[in-house]
């Protein structure tokens, strides 16, 4: 029952978020701020995670494929598809849900309990639109950028790991990366990314915006925001995959 009500409130909220901004200049300022503080600031985390996980995926694949019937470039192929199909768009987004989701929901939650949102409302500002639309819009841009960046670094990490450890020749690994390469996979991955980015930002905003109480509740609701966005990501990962890959 409570879940149904929350879902209803979430969609009502989106109705207020997606309005034309009253002043484009203010929207743009917030947009840039979000892009910078949330998007750009996530680059180190994405870089670190992707490089190392990419390396480990490649090493594990190489160590598992010792069947002489399989050509060695299979390692490149498997690394490529795990990173592009699943690691970068899904696992990376789950990690970002933790970082970005808690950030957004505690920021908005603090504004709620210190009456800053009330202050905006009293002025006649549509606070949902002013606060959340720039976050959503920025996420539509920085999430795909971060994920493409993550794919690139993941593959580079894999490349370095197998080549340095001498498991595979560089040519073979690259041959693997390029075999059966389908641009549709990139479309699929970026579709997931955009959807997940939207869920993370909008769900965390929701939990921040409707928080009641004090600092303790802000903390609790940002935890809830992360948990709920992660669950929603997992469910939609399944749905989108079913729809896009198994037509």
């Amino acid at each position, binding site marked *: 029952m409570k879940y149904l009500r929350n879902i209803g409130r979430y969609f009502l909220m989106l109705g207020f978020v997606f309005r034309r901004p*009253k*002043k484009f200049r203010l929207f743009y300022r917030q947009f840039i701020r979000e892009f910078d503080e949330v998007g750009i600031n996530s680059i180190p985390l994405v870089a670190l995670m992707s490089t190392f996980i990419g390396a480990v995926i490649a090493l594990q694949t190489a160590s598992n494929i010792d069947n002489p019937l399989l050509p060695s470039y299979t390692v490149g192929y498997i690394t490529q598809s795990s990173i592009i199909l699943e690691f970068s768009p899904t696992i990376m987004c789950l990690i970002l849900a933790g970082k970005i989701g808690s950030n957004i929901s505690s920021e908005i939650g603090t504004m709620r309990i*210190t009456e800053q949102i009330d*202050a905006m*409302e009293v*002025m*006649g500002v549509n606070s949902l639109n002013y606060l959340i639309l720039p976050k959503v819009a920025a996420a539509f841009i920085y999430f795909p950028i971060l994920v493409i960046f993550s794919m690139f670094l993941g593959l580079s990490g894999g490349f370095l790991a197998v080549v340095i450890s001498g498991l595979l020749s560089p040519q073979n690994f690259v041959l693997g990366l390029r075999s059966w390469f389908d641009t549709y996979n990139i479309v699929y991955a970026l579709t997931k990314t955009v959807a997940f980015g939207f869920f993370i930002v909008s769900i965390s905003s929701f939990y921040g915006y409707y928080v009641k109480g004090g600092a303790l509740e802000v903390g609790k609701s940002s935890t809830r925001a992360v948990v709920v966005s992660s669950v929603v990501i997992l469910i939609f990962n399944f749905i989108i995959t079913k729809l896009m890959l198994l037509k």
Partner: protein
Amino acid sequence: MIEAKGINKSFGNQQVLFDVSAQFHPGKVNLIIGQSGQGKTVLAKCMVGLHHPEKGEILFNGKDFLSMDKSSQSNLRSEIGMLFQGSALFDSMTVEENIKFPLSMFTKMSKKEMQHRVDFCLERVNLSGKNALYPSECSGGMQKRVGIARAISLNPKYLFCDEPNSGLDPKTAIVIDNLIRDITYEYHITTLVITHDMNSVMEIGDNILFIHQGKKWWEGDRKSILTSDNPEINAFVFASEFMKEIRSTLKGQKR
């Protein structure tokens, strides 16, 4: 003019306001006084639509605020300035940006005009030159004053101040009281001030509403508050033993 009619407000099963009705006239400083936790803030928040009363009407110049559509509400709200009890400054913005926020949201002022307006508002609350500070770098009293500067930046028609001078020293408190009174008279706005401070009551109270246990207990002007026979009013106004003595001498003289 703002008119509240039969406001009832509860939180869960705790009723906070009982049938409060009042009129607040323009060009006058209207005070809401009362002990802590009696529903003053809740009443003010009902009047600006931050709380939704279960029953009652809020009329701004005869138009019912609660039944308006969103866009007329929003238009009306841009004529309301409000200082919150906890200041509610935007903590990611500097003092200057806080005051500029309503200006850039609702006016087409040029950069220069805005700067001018910001400096003017800061000067009125004795904070000239503090433009670049962040709220976290301001003292509590300074935050209050920035809150007032932000509330008056758009030249509001209706001004709500929730405890504008709590936490201020007596001298600054008088500056703020005078500021509120001056702009009320100068621009003929409808001002509503919540306060516990007897100094302010005597200084600026044109029309005083005493809220007790969520009800409108008493209404009058600052002269009649001293001579009222209402026991709760007396307990509030003459809270200290010393003041009680003064009251009895006053009474003695009258007889």
